[in-house]
């Protein structure tokens, strides 16, 4: 039902209907932005990519085929390709840890807290997660972000990354193993 109405909205967007575009923006902006922020590791550059994803929705809506994929998958596909292009152009893999994106917790900490020690420990852990994610090869990172955080199905993620489901599972396993080593005591021991 949602997919059908989304397809109708995309048709309207193809005819340059701004109200339909706004609805789709409300539905997908936060999800796509979370993906790009986690992929790029830098909120400012990630927002540029997110903007480009939605500009493409606006300019190329007529190329979306609802029978081939969900809109969310189509948008993730564009975002994934733009992130890969970004890495190629910038030849940049690991972000300076000082540039890593802000989380809601970090923002709350900056505004003051009743339990600073607890918050500091949480912030450190969050920072470790971001740092660990950024150390992964981009394809492993993309696979984990899509399947763990974005709720993209394994088939859709494999389609986006142009690999088989088995290859996707291999990317996920290797990525998660590395994260485990970096983030958990069990992995370190």
């Amino acid at each position, binding site marked *: 039902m949602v997919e059908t109405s989304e397809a109708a909205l995309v048709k309207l967007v193809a005819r*340059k209907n*701004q109200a339909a*575009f*706004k609805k789709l*923006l*409300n539905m997908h*902006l*936060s999800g796509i*932005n*979370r993906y790009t*922020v*986690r992929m790029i590791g830098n*909120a400012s550059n990630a*927002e540029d990519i*997110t*903007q480009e994803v*939605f*500009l493409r929705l*606006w*300019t190329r809506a007529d190329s979306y085929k609802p029978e081939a994929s969900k809109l969310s998958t189509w948008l993730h596909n564009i975002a994934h390709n733009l992130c890969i292009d970004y890495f190629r152009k910038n030849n940049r893999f690991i972000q300076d840890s000082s540039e890593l*994106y*802000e*989380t*809601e*917790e*970090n*923002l709350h900490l900056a505004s003051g807290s009743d339990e600073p020690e607890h918050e500091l420990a*949480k912030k450190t*852990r*969050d920072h*470790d*997660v*971001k740092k660990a*994610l950024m150390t992964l090869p981009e394809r492993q990172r993309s696979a*984990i972000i899509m*399947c*763990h*955080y974005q*709720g993209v*199905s*394994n*088939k859709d993620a494999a389609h986006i990354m142009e690999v088989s*489901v088995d290859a*996707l*599972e*291999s990317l*996920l*396993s290797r990525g*998660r*193993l590395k*994260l*485990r080593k970096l*983030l*958990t*005591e*069990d*992995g370190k021991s």
Partner: protein
Amino acid sequence: MNIQRFKELIEAYGTRSERWPEADRHAALIFLEGDRDAIAIINELRTLDEALDADIVAQSTNLKADILHQISLTTVNHAEKNRDDLFSKLWRWLGPYANGSFVIWRPAIAACIPLLAGVYLGSVVETGSDDQLFEWEEDIYVMGLVSENEEQE
């Protein structure tokens, strides 16, 4: 489902069943209920999911407005481009070359347009009548005669 596949599943998709592939989820949940090794695997790998879940990304406040602004700019550009396209289409149509061949009748028609417009205007717009012009000439002639007689007197 067997322990090997269950382990592969958890290592790839994590310990939360909602993230397991739909095709495997039901079988994996049934397997988990009756297998101690499966429970041990879940307990062993749960920490990573907890660490990953703690990471939350804040939403930018201006991003939506920025995108909508960009869209309105591209809409204006699109309208200008369409207008340009219309003019250049007309210009191309009036030119003597169409689809790689020389077509003389198109510029000829274009050249005839002002001529036809002139003929049309000439037939529609009224000018002053000849009778009125003649009356004026007669008046001037009479006035001339009158002033000549006065001089003679």
